[in-house]
């Protein structure tokens, strides 16, 4: 079955089972490998993308359901104002260690800043607690979000 997705502003056809999670369609059918597989259960946040601007776990959405949504992935997030500020801050503070979770972290952080221009620590905890960083780069994730929001890094 062919399903039409809107990914990063481009219509993309995916010929796959409608139940296939968006995560695997991005990685296997659309060669967008920046979105990562971590747990397959919505517990780690590595697969976070934006659906109509909201941070969602792409391992938990079928492509049938994703067809109605505008999907943005890590490959395209820097084209938004908030995404540009976030990725610039991530580079400035050299946030990653292994880097595997960072696409998901950046997507969650961008969605937070798109809604909340000056997030408090509690806002950051609430928005980012769904994203595991096994290397524990949390000190810098928090600092980079504050820097992107225009505060002190």
């Amino acid at each position: 079955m062919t399903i039409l997705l809107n990914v990063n502003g481009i219509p993309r056809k995916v010929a796959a089972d409608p139940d296939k999670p968006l995560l695997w369609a991005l990685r296997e059918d659309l060669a967008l490998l920046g979105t990562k597989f971590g747990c397959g259960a919505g517990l780690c946040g590595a697969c976070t993308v934006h659906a109509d601007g909201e941070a969602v776990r792409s391992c938990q959405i079928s492509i049938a359901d994703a067809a109605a949504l505008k999907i943005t992935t890590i490959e395209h997030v820097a084209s938004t104002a908030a995404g540009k500020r976030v990725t610039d801050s991530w580079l400035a503070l050299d946030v990653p260690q292994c880097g595997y979770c960072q696409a998901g972290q950046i997507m969650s952080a961008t969605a937070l800043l798109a809604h909340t221009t000056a997030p408090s620590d509690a806002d950051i905890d609430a928005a980012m607690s769904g994203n595991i960083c096994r290397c524990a780069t949390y000190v810098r994730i928090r600092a980079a979000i504050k820097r992107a929001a225009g505060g002190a890094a």
Partner: protein
Amino acid sequence: MTATLDRRTLLKASIVAGGSLIFDLAAPFTTANAAGAVPINAFVRIAPDNSVTIGAHYPEIGQGVRTMLPMLIAEEMDLDWSQVRVEPTLADEKRYGQQITGGSESTPLNWIPMRQAGAAARAMLVAAAAARWGVDATSLTTASGTISHAPSGRRLPYAALAEATAKLTPPDAATVPLKKPTDFHIIGTSVMGVDTPAIVAGRPLFGIDTALPGLAYAAIEMCPAFGGSVASASLAAARGLPGVRHVMTLNTGINPDGPADAVAIVADSWWTANKARAALDIRWADAEQRRHSTAGYAKAAAAAMAATPGESLLKNGDAPGALARSARIIEADYHYPFLAHATLEPQNCTALWNGETIEIWAPTQWPEDGRALVAKALGLEPEAIKIHLVRAGGGFGRRLQNDYMMQVAQIARAVPGVPIKLINSRSDDIRHDFYRPAGWHRLKAGIDASGRVMALTDHFITFGRDGKTVRAAEFNPAEFPLQVIGHIDVGQSLLATNVPTGWLRAPTSNAMAFVFQSFLDEVAAAGGRDLPTLMRDLLGKPRELPGSDGLPGFHTGRARGVIDKVCAMAGWPAAPGGKPRGFGFYFSHRGYFAEIVEISVGKDGLVAVEHVWVAADIGSQIINPINARHQVEGAIIDGLGQALAGQAIEIVDGAVIQANFDGYPLPRIDTTPAITLEFLITDFPPTGLGEPSLPPVIPALANAIHAATGKRIRRLPITPAMLT
């Protein structure tokens, strides 16, 4: 594991197509623990545009080695970091020397050889310029990849000397002088990770991102009970599913010479392959394995602790006599659980069988071990196996095991010409790890009337097979404080297990630090002292104690240095009315770390870690300060997570029951404390940082909980129920 090469063959310069100059460099191994001169190669390419590509030959798992090792070469070559590009080399120990990310050894093993490699390349370029200009080499200076002759004002980029350099006889790298640390312009500066821009942009980078034309995907159903095998398997239903191409039985490597113990499914999509596992009908032969359980181990450990140790591990002085003379005896039992590694990138590997040779893309910490496994499993010569080093999404010791490499190689051989990517699901990853072994300790210490330690005994219950401890379950007699107590008696008893075990970040030390530093806090308190005071007393005068396995020994002065430093940083002892704090010290992987943890404990028994102070001594030079800070912050939070997040692997009927991050939780951003870190710079060679900061934070936390609640933490993980 490492070939010995004739030094004369090691260093050469040559021009390749396109006019690039290539240095294939080697430098003798000069670290103290080298049994002989072991070559380490670095690969440097100077392009006609004077950009320089440096090969990174160690596996990158997030510890920053892909950045750090090229920094050492670029420093001595007098390059600007901005003109350097870094690319991973292949796995090839004959050419590059040891390529293992483990033991925090990358820095101590490469600190001198990589700099010698860079210095030798620079010396050859300088010699070429001196010959061209007819001047003495000592009148030339180098900077930013150029050579200058100040008296005449002449100046050339390195690339302009490529052809002349390629004709020169290389120097003995060991004789080329190295820079003074005061002249460093790259080492000691904070350099961004070379892969950070690709990570932030979401570009393919990791093993799981390997993209090849015609790629197919594999998932594996493994016997849940470790060591069980396939009794019978009905594969037809899975074979008939849309998208499924092959279904085959497989040996996972737990019993390498045994029968098949898994079924692999190859499909057009990993999601399809993984989903098709539900259609498999497998009966396992696992009656023996199903008798194993962590509850059973706990019972057996209790019985063993009550009995005489199976063997004596370490005896110094007369512990029974010293205990009899002691003014007071302190006794306690300690326990820690099995732990998984839970790298965020699940284990995966990609392989392509070409009919006679195999090409592998492996996120591994130890590629040559994987090569040996694949060679044995497929009956190949090692040279028939080409291994690409791909960035790994975390390692923590898990990827020192190469089960995924031999598994995918077997699958790929059954499907010639088709690249196969094997991916573990998260539950596969947690249920088929090589676990940090659980352990039990029955401890006894005697103190005199002034609180001084007279004697210490330990009965250690661990896991073994055929009379020997299983991997990573051994006791290291050099663990602190055994070397500094006069009367010691350590015995060991072994329990049988079917659980695969392995090295987890700061192996042995991550458990022993908790046991001994927590117990010493009890001993200190019994004598009316605090732990730093007891530690200073135990350490005595500054001196280096004998090392083992060729490693440098424990230096009491360096330990004292970090203890005094962290106490000064945190203001220990705290003024009355301050928040509860605990102290921990440990020496592991050549590094000295003292840490103080400040906490609050809620009425619900929930512990919040508010601040951690860290004083560290890893020698004379912090090579990449920003990365050094990252490694310490990560290890501190990792250690706190081991203790507080609820991490424990439980075995029921021979199999792990935890399946994902709900049952095996990792620390999240909302539990992150403030971390204050200072490095003491000392006159010792620089050493590694991936591991040694982790162990002391766990006892420091446990000791803080005692300060807060009066309750001793003698088993991990810490749960709110223990504190209410």
